[in-house]
Every structure is written in C-alpha cells, then in structure tokens.
C-alpha cells in the first residue's frame, strides 16, 4: 500500500526521463543537419568537429537515459503490459542517434570530396532525413500521450523516407553520370547510402510504433 504514495513521484520521474530521451533525439537531429551543411560548405572544420562532439555527447546522454528508463521500468514494475514495447521503442530510437554519430564520424575520418554540383542534392537528402526523424520523435511522444495521433505522424515519416529514397537515387544517378573518378563516385555513393539509411531506420522504428499504438488502442 505504501509504495503507492511514492507511485506518482516515480511515474513523474519516468515520464521526465522519456521526455528527455526524445529531446536528445530532436536536438541531435538539428545538430546533424547543421554539421552536414557545414561540411558541405567548408569541409571538416573546427566547427564541424564541435558539432560531431555535441552529437556524441547527446548519444552518450541518451544511452544513459535509456539505461535509467530500463531500470525504472523493471525495478519498479511499471507499465507491466507495455514495458516490452516501450523498451523496444527506446532501443530502436537510440539507434538513430548512433547512426547520426557514425555518419558524422565517417565525414570526419574519410573527408569525402563533395563537388559543388552535388551539394544541393546532399542538402536536400539531409533535409528529408531530418524531417523523417523529427516526425518520428513527434510520433514517439504521441505514443505515450495520444496514440490516436501516431498513424498520422507515421504517415509523414513514410512520406519523408520515400522522398529521401527518391533524392538519394537521383543523387546517385547524378554522381555516376559525372566525370569524376570511379573511386570518388563509389566514395560519394557510400555517403549517400549512409545518410539515407537513417531515414530507412526511422521508417522501421515508425513501423514498430504503429503496432505498439494499435496494441494500446485495443
């Protein structure tokens, strides 16, 4: 009986941790976009490295929040019939942050030479990916507060992912039709795939989320 007196405190703490986790995802998404645009403008500058470090910190903080959420869910036996879904969601969403970090590390280490003719394509691709991730973050938040809103957010995730696929295909065509060396073409293609892969993963998370939301609504 007495544990119920602290129940609302524990509940508020958990809610706050989950909110913080999705804040990290949204923040990382903004920084990622700025970092890629910065790279396209001035290469692996000091500013780019700072942004890479910021994304790394956000990823570490999100990892720590994820572990905290897992512990709170299992230690305090909260939401017993949905905690598996919540953990699945947090873990797969956490992978998006890892992908942001990996993508920026690849830019920093491999320093691809992106010719002016391709920069607009990379910008558009990054924009679409970020829009998909932002919409995913909204969808995840909606899952906790208003599961009825999840399908409309997920529809947008899918839309942006499709658009990202289209942009990435066009960009790859443009790269391989250009006069640059094959090795450069292959290098640039990998970066297109790396960025586009984030939108693909966002769509996978949204697909899982759709099932979790249906379970909540029935």
């Amino acid at each position, binding site marked *: 009986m007495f544990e119920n007196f602290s*129940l609302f405190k524990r509940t508020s703490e958990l809610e706050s941790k989950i909110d913080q986790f999705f804040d990290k995802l949204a923040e990382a998404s903004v920084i990622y976009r700025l970092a890629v645009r910065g790279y396209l403008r001035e290469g692996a500058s000091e500013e780019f490295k700072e942004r890479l470090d910021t994304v790394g910190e956000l990823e570490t903080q999100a990892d720590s929040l994820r572990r905290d959420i897992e512990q709170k869910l299992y230690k305090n*036996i909260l939401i*017993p*019939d949905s905690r598996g879904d919540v953990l699945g969601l947090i873990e797969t969403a956490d992978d998006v942050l890892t992908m942001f970090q990996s993508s920026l590390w690849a830019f920093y280490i491999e320093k691809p030479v992106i010719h002016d003719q391709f920069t607009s394509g990379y910008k558009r691709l990054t924009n679409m990916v970020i829009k998909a991730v932002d919409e995913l973050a909204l969808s995840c938040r909606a*899952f*906790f*507060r*208003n599961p009825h809103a999840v399908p409309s957010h997920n529809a947008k995730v899918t839309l942006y992912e499709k658009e990202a696929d289209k942009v990435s295909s066009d960009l790859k065509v443009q790269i391989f039709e250009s006069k640059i060396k094959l090795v450069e073409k292959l290098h640039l293609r990998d970066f297109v795939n790396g960025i586009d892969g984030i939108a693909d993963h966002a769509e996978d998370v949204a697909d899982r989320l759709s099932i979790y939301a249906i379970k909540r609504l029935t």
Partner: protein
Amino acid sequence: MIDPIILLFLSSGLFLGWALGANDAANVFGTAVGTKMVSWRNAAIICSIFVVLGAVISGAGTSQTLGKLGAITALPGAFMTALSAGFSVFVMTKSGLPVSTSQAIVGAIIGWNVFSNQATDTSTLTKILSTWIICPLLAAVIAIVLLKLSKYFGRRLKISLIRSDAYKRIALIFAGALGAYSLGANNIANVIGVFIPVQPLAELTIGSVNFSSTQQLFLLGGLAIALGVCTYSKKVMMTVGSDLGQLSSTSALIAVISHSIVLFLFASQGLEALLLKYGLPTIPLVPVSSSQAVVGAIFGISILQGITAVKWHVLGKIIAGWIVTPVVAALVCFIGLFFLQNVFGLVVV
C-alpha cells in the same frame, strides 16, 4: 468463550468461508496481483479488511434470503448443510467445473428441506435461480458500458501511458476494496447463513456494546474468509492473473470493477431501500457467484472488442454447473443428514 461443541458444528461453515476466501479473492485481486500491478501482500491485507467489513456491515440482506429458502432449526442440521455444500464445491472443483459456493449452499438447503419435509419457498427459489442467469449477464452489460466510457474518456483526456499506469494501480486497489467488501457482503450468507436461524452463540457484551449471535457469526464468517485469503489465495491469484493475461490492463480493471458492482448490487440493503423509496423494482439480495460475474464481464468485453470466438465450452461448463452443483449438494446433504440422524442419533431438524 465459544462452546467447543458449537465451534465443531460451526467448523463446516468456517471451512466453507476459508475455501471461499482462498478461491474468490482471486476474482477480486487476481488480475492486479497476476500482472504485478499490486503486490500479493497488499492485496491480502486490503481484501481481508474489506471482506470482514462487508460481512459484518452488509451481510444481512443475502442471509435473510437464504433463511427464507429454508430456516434450519438444529445446529447439526446446519453443520451438515454447510458441510455438504463444501464437499460439493470440493468435488466439482476437482472435476474442473467452475463451481459456485452460492449454488452449492442453495442445493444443500433444498436437500435439508426435502429431508425435513419442509416445503421449499418457490418464489424465493425462483428469485435465486433467476439471479444465477442475471448475474453474469449484468456483469457483461456493466463491463460493456464501462469499456465504452473508458474509451470515450481515454480519447479525450489524453493521459500519458506512464501516468495511466499509476491511475490504474490506484483504481485496482479501490476496485479490489469494493470487490472484497461486496464479496463479504454477498457471500457471507453462504458461509454462515444456515447457522443464523439456529442462533448458536450467546449474546456477547463488550463494555456497553452487545453483539448478537448473528453479528458474531458474521464476524466469524468474515474472519474465516480473511483467513482463506491470507493463507491460500496467492497461488489462485497468480493462476487467475495469468489466465486473464490476454486482457489489456484496462480490460482487466473493468472486469474487476464490473464484478464488484454486480456483487454489491445483489447485496446492498441500502440500494434496495432507495429503490423502494422511489417505487422502482428492487434487485433481489441473493448470494451470487463471484467467478461467474468475472466470466460474464470478460464475455462482455470480448463481445465489444469483436472477438467472435466465444468459448462455448466455458459457457457450457457454467450452465452445467448451475444444474449439477445444487443437485450434488442436495443429494450429499440428504444422505449426510440421514447418517447424522440415524447413525449418530443427532437432532438435525
């Protein structure tokens, strides 16, 4: 101090109370404990307190109805009636039929009526029989209404998943307390109802407060149910919890609330007085089956959720229980009374 002989005769009723506590507490708190939303310790404490309160405060209504069915006048007769009901419950449980203590005690009383050549009050019997059908149906209707309301408000209030979990835990405790109170009020008649007309206990005075034989019986019966809850309900609660595990936590909560409301409706003298005051038809105060109320509620939820695969074999078993349980109890009671009277030379009528 209670005379040991009287206590011996009361033991069959107290055993019935123990069995009731061990089994039916699971209908009240099984889902909450099985899903780990409420710890068994807390459930047992709340259940025990409210079962005793329900029995002592509101147990009179259903006991009077059973008294009208057959007023047993000798203590050994009451002993055998309760024992045969308990024995039938045991046998039926072993056979895997969803048995109801309420149905067993009604059969046993009819067995006593037949043995003692007393006419069974058919209007009371009809009233009781009708509640066996009405009880699960009413639970189903209440569950459907509650589920509709929860969906309506759930959509508008937009409570977060984590916060709603906390609310559900609190609601399960309140619903459990109401359920335990209603269980005590409604089913205490099964435990000690047959002993009330005999008035086996002397009036007890503590300070300036007098406790009648009936009040002491209600307390003893309530304590027996509470003992059953504390000593043996854990395993049953875990089983019921996992059996109902396919339900969402909201549906499980609604099943428990519906069950509690139905038991309360069939036990509340206050509600009966209120309905009478406004000239409305009253709800008969009859001990009903707690298990069948839960099954009825789940049936209602399943219908609303569009689950078309009705478990007909479960429904068939319940209907078989309505017939087989009282018949077995009546037969056992008749034979037992014959032995008590002719072999042991006890006055049973």
